[in-house]
């Protein structure tokens, strides 16, 4: 991944991510988030994570965000008419943000002397590689995920049916 591609993706990503939290209307926020996720998927492609990129779109952009949009529509959440948060909180957020970015800048300076990337295995990022590892090394988490999803269905149905 070269610098041109990186910045061509990173700058829109950051701008759109800011729009997610800055836009007053939840519908637009959700759509900006979809866009962020889509760009991230493209980003994953450049990081040789093809399967994850597809997943990002299918699961995140295609399913989770549809659910968000559904709830926004069902609850009629229009514009954010709530009062702005207390000043202290706002200030804390901004200060915290600045510190974090500054820290990252520091990190960037330090890391200029990092070691080179490891060589990529033959089938890195392919479905086969992912699948064979997922269903051997990570079999237990995989089964637990199933149970987690079951719990989610039960929980959501119980809650929404009330």
């Amino acid at each position, binding site marked *: 991944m070269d610098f041109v591609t990186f910045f061509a993706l990173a700058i829109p990503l950051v701008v759109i991510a800011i729009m997610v939290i800055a836009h007053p209307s939840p*519908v637009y926020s959700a*759509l900006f988030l*979809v866009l962020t996720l*889509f760009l991230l998927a493209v980003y994953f492609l450049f990081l040789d994570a*093809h*399967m994850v990129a*597809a*997943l990002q*779109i*299918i699961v995140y*952009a*295609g*399913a989770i965000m*549809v659910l968000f*949009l*559904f709830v926004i*529509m069902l609850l009629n959440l229009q514009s954010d008419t709530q009062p702005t948060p207390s000043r202290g909180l706002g200030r804390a957020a901004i200060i915290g943000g600045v510190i974090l970015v500054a820290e990252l800048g520091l990190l960037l300076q330090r890391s200029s002397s990092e070691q080179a990337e490891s060589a990529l295995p033959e089938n890195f990022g*392919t*479905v086969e590689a992912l699948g064979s590892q997922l269903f051997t090394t990570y079999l237990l988490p995989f089964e637990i995920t199933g149970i987690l999803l079951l719990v989610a269905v039960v929980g959501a149905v119980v809650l929404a049916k009330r």
Partner: protein
Amino acid sequence: MIDFLITFSLTLLMVLMVLNLGGLLLWVERKGSAVLQDRIGANRAAVFGKLPFNLGIVNTLVADPIKLFTKEDFVPQGADKLLHTLAPAIGLVPLLVTFIVIPFGDVLIIGGREITLQAANLNIGILYVLAMVSLSVYGVVLGGWASNNRWALLGGIRGSAQMISYEIPLGLALIGVVLAFGSLDLQEITRAQGALIGGWIPAWGIVYQPVAFLIFLAAGIAESKRIPFDLPEAESELISGYFTEYSGSKQAMFMLGDFVEAIIVAGLITTLFFGGWQVPFLLRDGFHFPWGGTLALPSLLVTLLQVGAFTLKVLFFCWLQIMIRWTLPRFRYDQLISLGWKILLPLALANVMLTALIILLFE
């Protein structure tokens, strides 16, 4: 550079093919329904007057866009103007880019250069299709919501509930095929279907996965929102559903989107279940009949035959969808949901597990 040009022209070809097929389907739908219903059908757009042959196709392809593009563009009061404008594009673009992964031929050999007749050879081909189809649901949701119209909202919500409900059986039906062929790459799957079972029967997906084919057909028609699954736009119920407040070229985009989806479904059925560009017994150097005869053919002719076979198969499945559309009555919302979740989904899951079991036992 020449590689890029080849890629570019292949992609352009696929996009144009989808667009033109969309227009063609519109005409086939009109004339086809007319044939089915003992009517004459669309016959007004006649450039050359009363010729014995009416250039219906040409006229429809030209006259319809002209008509739709010169209609007034309408945004209702109180609607979200930006989203109302964007929604058709959001719905259409993911569909337009889906078709490029479908291989329409084996290889074309020109000047010693082997060109794979597939615009985008992705190793996650099937997942790409699923991803793009799952994005197109936004067009429906946003179109319905942004119009600020109750009918549109109902249509949008019905539409999104329907599309997400049938995405699961659609995906599961494909898994059966993936299991059978062990690949996500559409070109590879197509090539694998060139084999013969017992020397006679082409190893098409339909032979391995007949249940998956039926599930895929049903779910695919549901995704393209056509009768019997046209609830989101059911004219007699919701006026036009999510595109009630659309006019002119924006409405044309929604209509085109449905046709493109039908073409994608036809293309995928062809590729996954009916051998794609495979012609039975036709290999790269000509026909090898199971009864022993061979017929050598030049490679260009073979390629042409394959592309022709692919096109014919796609057209046939488009036509099949149109015939279904004009034959069956529409589902009701609760029937639709229970068909999707209580019948197709368990069936598809059972099909996947059964396929896996059979593979386990016999290989």
